[in-house]
């Protein structure tokens, strides 16, 4: 999708093509990448903890969600980390409260989402580029190699490209593009620490992140990306309709024992012998035994508009979302995701306002 936007002759495109190809066919890094320092030619293997194989008698407990179903994790959002970029932001979700035994283990049970975003532009397109009446938006999302439990490659893979496309749709609807004809803006996000797809104890020997059917962590990452990009775009001073914020909600299985005071808002009925379906916002995948469906929205709260919607999963007992009852379930999930986005928007608004006040103060000082 990025090929038609770029000059086909440039080195850039060749590399993109190469990246694209190697993303699909998994060419070993040692064979292709001659511009980086590669590891030992024989290849090394990730660490295997004896406790994850059940050896040694130590058992590890799954972290459990102790926040209420309609509470977000704490968000830290700050703008202006990259002074040389036109706009930048950093977002961190604090890990949910530890169960107490994580501190003595090297394999942490929960991880925190950490994202940095830099916005470059708007800047003029090169003379050779064809005329565009709208601003050209390009988004890049890259996971750092130490972002997940499994080491990630340096070249963007399919799941990262997919996330970037989702982000682009979310942002395209917000930026007032026709104010900058013949110019481009780049949104670059680096994931320093990603969300996990499931609890590591459930992975029997080298689970993968992203791309697979599970990929629940990706939804949280996308919501974080939307929020952090929105803050960075505001920091860059690019005109937008509103601040777009990302929210996630999921339908999860909660053990009956933990399910106190079933409230009508989040409870979705019984499943199996001792579990209940529950709607939660901002799910941390490692805290839930089973996630059935999840939904991400990019939401403009003052205009009540959704610019990006990504819903996936399957509610048990159903195979499609065709009957009215199931439509209601989808509606409920969507409403919860919007609710999450509205709550995130409060943090986002506060961070942007703080940065703007700081900037205004500086400008006043400079004038004096």
């Amino acid at each position, binding site marked *: 999708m990025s090929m038609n936007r770029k000059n086909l002759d440039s080195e850039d495109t060749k*590399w993109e093509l190469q990246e694209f190809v190697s993303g699909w066919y998994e060419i070993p890094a040692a064979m292709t990448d001659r511009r980086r320092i590669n590891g030992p030619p024989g290849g090394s293997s990730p660490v295997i903890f004896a406790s994850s194989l059940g050896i040694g008698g130590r058992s590890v407990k799954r972290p459990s969600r102790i926040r209420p179903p309609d509470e977000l994790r704490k968000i830290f959002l700050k703008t202006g980390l*990259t002074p040389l970029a036109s706009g930048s932001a950093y977002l961190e979700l604090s890990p949910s409260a530890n169960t107490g035994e994580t501190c003595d283990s*090297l394999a*942490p049970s929960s991880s925190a989402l950490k994202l940095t975003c830099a916005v470059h532009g708007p800047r003029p397109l090169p003379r050779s580029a064809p005329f565009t009446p709208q601003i050209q938006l390009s988004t890049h999302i890259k996971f750092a190699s130490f972002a997940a439990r499994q080491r990630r490659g340096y070249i963007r893979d399919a799941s990262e490209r997919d996330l970037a496309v989702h982000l682009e749709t979310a942002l395209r609807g917000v930026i007032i593009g026709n104010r900058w004809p013949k110019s481009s803006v780049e949104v670059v996000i680096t994931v320093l620490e990603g969300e996990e797809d499931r609890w590591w104890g459930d992975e029997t020997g080298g689970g993968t992140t992203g791309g697979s059917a599970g990929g629940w962590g990706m939804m949280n990452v996308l919501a974080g990306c939307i929020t952090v990009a929105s803050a960075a775009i505001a920091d860059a001073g690019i005109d937008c309709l509103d601040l777009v914020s990302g929210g996630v909600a999921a339908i999860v299985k909660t053990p009956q024992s933990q399910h106190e005071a079933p409230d009508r808002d989040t409870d979705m009925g019984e499943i199996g012998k001792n579990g209940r379906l529950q709607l939660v916002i901002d799910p941390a995948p490692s805290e839930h035994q089973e996630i059935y469906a999840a939904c991400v929205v990019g939401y403009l709260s003052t205009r009540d508009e959704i610019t990006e919607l990504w819903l996936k999963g399957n509610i048990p007992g159903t195979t499609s979302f065709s009957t009215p009852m199931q439509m209601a379930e989808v509606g409920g999930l969507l409403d919860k995701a919007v609710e999450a986005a509205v709550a995130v928007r409060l943090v986002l608004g506060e961070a942007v306002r703080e940065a703007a006040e700081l900037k205004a103060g500086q400008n006043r000082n400079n004038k004096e």
Partner: protein
Amino acid sequence: MAASKPPSPAISPPSLSFPRATFAKLSPHPFLLAHLQPPTPPSANTTPPHRPNGRLPTQFRPPNLHTGSLTHASGSSVVRLGDTAVVCGIRAEILPASNVGCAYTCGGSDDDTEIQALGLLVPNVELSTGCSPAHLPGQPPSPLAQTLAARLQSLLYATNLIGADELRIMYVSPPADDAGEGGGAEEVKAWWTLYIDILFISLDGNPFDAAWASLLLALKDTRLPLAYWDPDLACVLCDDLVANAKRLRMRRWPVASTFAVYSAQERGSVGGDGAGKWILADPDAFEEGLCRESVTVVVDCEEAEGGGVKTRIVRLEKRGGGSAGKAEIKEVVEMATERWRVWRDVLKGNA
């Protein structure tokens, strides 16, 4: 004082001078020169010349550190020098002896070659994180990223920071018979491989010092889990208890300091050898763009008796131009020693 004046933008005549930022952009070279040149005539009470960023020519940016913030890395650090910010994460993986192609025989004390021959330290630098407008993603690693990674790797090997025995995973075969006879032979079953990834969050000059400092800090922060060879599964298993993990022991703490040499002579012009030159410590991106020559000194000091330090030069790199002579190099090494002291104090405060 300025506030007491009534603002009268409408009456004031159009100013004929540029604001600072415009001057810097239009003619950067004279801008820097105007800052560095001592005032004429020299008087006692004027302040010494400052660089455009407000620092003295020999003043470094104070380092700001943080370690151990990444969950999935064995060791991590964040280093901030002014507007240059670097994140370094180290991931330890296991290289089984069976994966080493040619039968490698480790010679016990033969430390220096073992790590290098097996390639156990793998530093990589990522600049395309949008850290500055010059480095945008979608492109292969830039020449700067490649040279930085190569320089870091060669310095890592040259300084011999980590002993090979730290990275070996040994196996002592159990006694063959009941009497405890036989066996007991030590065998290297695997090695730890450290993937060192350095990401620039923000780049405002002097990438090497920041990258090297973050690398050292992350190495210092690295904890390797207790690893053992499991003969039944025929693989290396690890214990996830923090209490059993061990920190990497670093033999020394070499500090890198980079200086740019700025000469009053404009780029490209010939002659005029007598023009002034300044040594700027820890240059930022604006100064780096104007200086042709730069010197990187890596020093490793030892505290001698009586409060002094004994300086050892580990590496000296000088690029582009020959205006810095013996005297300047000597001066630069002295400043690098001072810088080593600063880092020592910072680390003591941090630890």
